[in-house]
């Protein structure tokens, strides 16, 4: 390894790496993302390593533990390239067959293939799987091709070419102009034009400037930033270095939540490697530009994803937001002009610089360009990360990419933007997703967390869950957020417990409106959204709880009752034996009865009954 001193040396290194890789025909990529690791991909990797050595094919095949290709539902994933043969749910005991059949004999192991839920057909190749068919993986695509702990892997795939182009062919103003022209908007959720933000910070008076990457991803159900940092940390670094050059910063910070240890580890390795190769530090690629990056670990506060709280946390103070103005671009970290962007925003930069703004702007809608990664979770068949052009409709996302709702249940709504966002019901499924359309519908693009709910989910309880989350995560500084969210939680709790009062819905609307208007920071200003949007679209559910004392989804325990249909009950005794509360009685072959006083509404009888005799009302 040598320090790269010019653009030419980078090109030379890449060519050498590409030539060396040409000798090895196939790549076996085992997903090393946190999701697949939890499902055992590390043991699969080790098994592959030893089995390949045993069979003597270690030198013909490259084995890599890569980043996440997105299809978390089906992990551990093994993809064999260049064909893109896609094996899912691979366990260590499948490895000998996989190696013997596929790697040695070139045959497909049928049992490891993806089976389409609708057609029952087995699909062999990644590109043919419906989950991938509508995706445009600009940001995630490289994840399953490289080892995130290897800078040479990244360079051999064209990495750092954008940086070298920016440093040698473009002035900082050119870079900002290109980003502005591309129409990139902040991927943290608010959608502020990135180029404009950079220009403000660049033009702010001051010799010392900072840039920050916000990787404090904390929305329930969101994990795309984790996958990006874990799976391709050099892409993020490259974006940051280009940004530092454009803005005139000499130092950058990546604020990673401590709950993402693998992301922090990979990023730390990437920073060390970039320094070794002269891509970070003094005189980067001989351009005279000095820049370095440090990692700061978050200590577990959701509010530290808010930019002013995040900066307070980096400075070593309590993670409490402060009022703006002054904005970070004028007075940010340690009082210096600071530019904060989200992981995905930074990671888009090398793509824009390398391919040019015009090419980048071809994807997306009129007002929002590029792709957006969503983490699709909840009541959906294909849980995972999805990268689609902005403007894709919700229906395409949920039903084509997401594979629809499991168990033949009905789709009810999708919560977009986590606890700051709102729910979008069935009637708006054909809305193309961009920043403005979502805001008009009472939701928010947010970081891209998407929680799908089906007919069994009670929307009042759902709103209560998010309210419970934000009231716990509120920093507690300002009254509307600290006490207002708590008050909303109290009201929602009493509604779900069957103690709702007339006027509660109006009170929630009034409180929500006031909290949005008068809270200090973005957390409070968006905290009521889940409640307001569920009232907007599912007010009848709220009213059923309050006026009729019933939960239409049969989810709120205090509002439901179990009973046995005497016509259907055969008196088999299955429920009677298993009832943990001993609430069921009845003679053999005679209809049984549930004692409502004793019943704890656990649902065991409902699950056990083979005759559908248990009724929930």
């Amino acid at each position, binding site marked *: 390894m040598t320090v790269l001193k010019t653009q030419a040396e980078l090109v030379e290194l890449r060519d050498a790496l590409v030539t060396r890789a040409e000798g090895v025909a196939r790549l076996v990529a085992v997903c090393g993302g946190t999701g697949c690791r939890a499902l055992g991909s590390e043991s699969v990797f080790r098994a592959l390593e030893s089995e390949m050595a045993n069979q003597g094919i270690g030198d013909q095949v490259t084995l890599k533990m890569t980043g996440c290709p997105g299809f978390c539902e089906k992990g551990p994933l093994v993809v064999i390239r260049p064909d893109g043969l896609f094996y899912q749910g691979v366990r260590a005991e499948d490895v000998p067959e996989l190696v013997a059949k596929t790697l040695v004999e070139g045959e497909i192991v049928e049992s490891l293939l993806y089976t389409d839920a609708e057609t029952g057909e087995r699909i062999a190749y990644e590109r043919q799987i419906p989950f991938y068919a509508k995706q445009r993986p600009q940001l995630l695509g490289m994840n399953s091709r490289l080892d995130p702990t290897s800078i040479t892997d990244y360079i051999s795939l064209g990495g750092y070419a954008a940086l070298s182009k920016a440093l040698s062919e473009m002035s900082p103003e050119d870079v900002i102009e290109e980003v502005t022209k591309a129409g990139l908007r902040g991927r943290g959720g608010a959608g502020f034009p990135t180029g404009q933000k950079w220009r403000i910070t660049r033009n702010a008076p001051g010799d010392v400037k900072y840039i920050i990457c916000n990787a404090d991803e904390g929305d329930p159900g969101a994990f795309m930033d984790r996958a990006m940092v874990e799976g391709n940390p050099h892409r993020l670094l490259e974006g940051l270095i280009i940004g530092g050059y454009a803005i005139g910063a000499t130092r950058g910070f990546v604020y990673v939540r401590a709950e993402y240890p693998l992301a922090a580890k990979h990023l730390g390795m990437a920073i060390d490697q970039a320094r070794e190769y002269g891509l970070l530090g003094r005189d980067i690629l001989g351009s005279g530009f000095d820049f370095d990056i440090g990692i700061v670990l978050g200590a577990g506060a959701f509010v530290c994803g808010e930019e002013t709280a995040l900066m307070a946390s980096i400075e070593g103070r309590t993670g409490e937001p402060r*009022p703006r103005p002054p904005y970070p671009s004028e007075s940010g970290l340690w009082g210096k002009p600071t530019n904060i962007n989200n992981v995905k925003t930074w990671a888009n930069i090398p793509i824009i610089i390398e391919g040019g703004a015009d090419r980048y702007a071809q994807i997306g809608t009129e007002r929002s360009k590029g792709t957006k990664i969503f983490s699709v979770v909840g009541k959906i068949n294909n849980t995972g990360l999805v990268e689609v052009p902005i403007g894709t409709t919700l229906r395409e996302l949920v039903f084509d990419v997401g594979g629809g709702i499991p168990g033949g249940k009905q789709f009810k709504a999708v919560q977009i933007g986590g606890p700051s966002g709102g729910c979008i019901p069935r009637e708006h499924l054909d809305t193309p997703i961009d920043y403005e359309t979502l805001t008009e519908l009472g939701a928010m693009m947010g970081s891209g967390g998407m929680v799908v709910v089906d007919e069994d989910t009670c929307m009042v309880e759902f709103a209560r869950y998010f309210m419970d989350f934000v009231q716990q995560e509120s*920093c507690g*500084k300002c009254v509307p957020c*600290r006490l207002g969210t708590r008050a909303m939680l109290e009201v929602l709790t009493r509604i779900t417990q069957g103690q709702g009062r007339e006027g509660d819905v109006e009170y929630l609307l009034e409180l929500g409106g006031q909290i949005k*208007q*008068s809270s200090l920071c973005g957390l409070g200003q968006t905290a009521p959204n889940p409640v307001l949007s569920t009232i907007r679209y599912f007010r009848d559910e709220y009213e059923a709880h309050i006026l009729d004392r019933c939960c239409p989804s049969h989810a709120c325990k205090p509002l439901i009752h179990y009973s046995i249909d005497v016509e259907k009950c055969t008196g088999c005794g299955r429920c009677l034996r298993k009832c943990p509360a001993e609430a069921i009685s009845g003679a053999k072959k005679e209809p049984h009865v549930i004692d409502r006083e004793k019943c704890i509404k656990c649902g065991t009888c409902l699950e056990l009954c083979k005759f559908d005799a248990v009724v929930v009302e």
Partner: protein
Amino acid sequence: MISLTIDGHKVEALEGSSILEAAREHGIEIPTLCFHEALEPYGSCRLCVVELETPRGPRLVASCVYPAEEGAMVETNSEKVQASRRMTAELLLAAAPHAKAIQELTVRMGVQEPRVSLSDNDCILCGLCVRACKEIVGAMAISLVNRGFSKEVSPPFETGSNSCVGCTTCVFICPTGAIKLEDVLGNRSVHRWESDFDVRACKLCGDHFLGPEVSTDLEKALTEE
């Protein structure tokens, strides 16, 4: 000087002053709880919200922390402002129903029974004690700890702080009387912080003053300066 319009009146303000300062300078009253002239503004109680005209329409801002800007159009008592203050006052009453200052405030705002009951704690977390201890006394014996509804004022590790000098500034600045001072038989206690000091009573007026240890420290500090 900066000129701005508050409640329809054109007023002048010093550069760098807040909307609240500009308004008060001209006799326009804005209610506050967490604000104190001697301390850095904090912007937490949100009682001082005013309506500010912006290019994206009118919005509420906390006047104690929002800078008075050239040409700004501000309404300090619009219907929107009053509704916001009433809600804030109602929430404070729901959390501190026995604090006299809050009771008086809600009466002034025309708020009756709060529609929820949240807690019964006189401390409203305005942070005045913490800021006074830091900015005026320089002791930094107490701070705001925890998050959300569990937030509270506490000495480090919730145990008596060595940094407390027994000055009782916190006691006097607290708007709700949540911090109690007890001078009994030569002993001064601020129970909330587990602070205990020996004190003597003044032979003339009967008020207590700090005992020998602290007075020596104080004397030393004063001579050093």
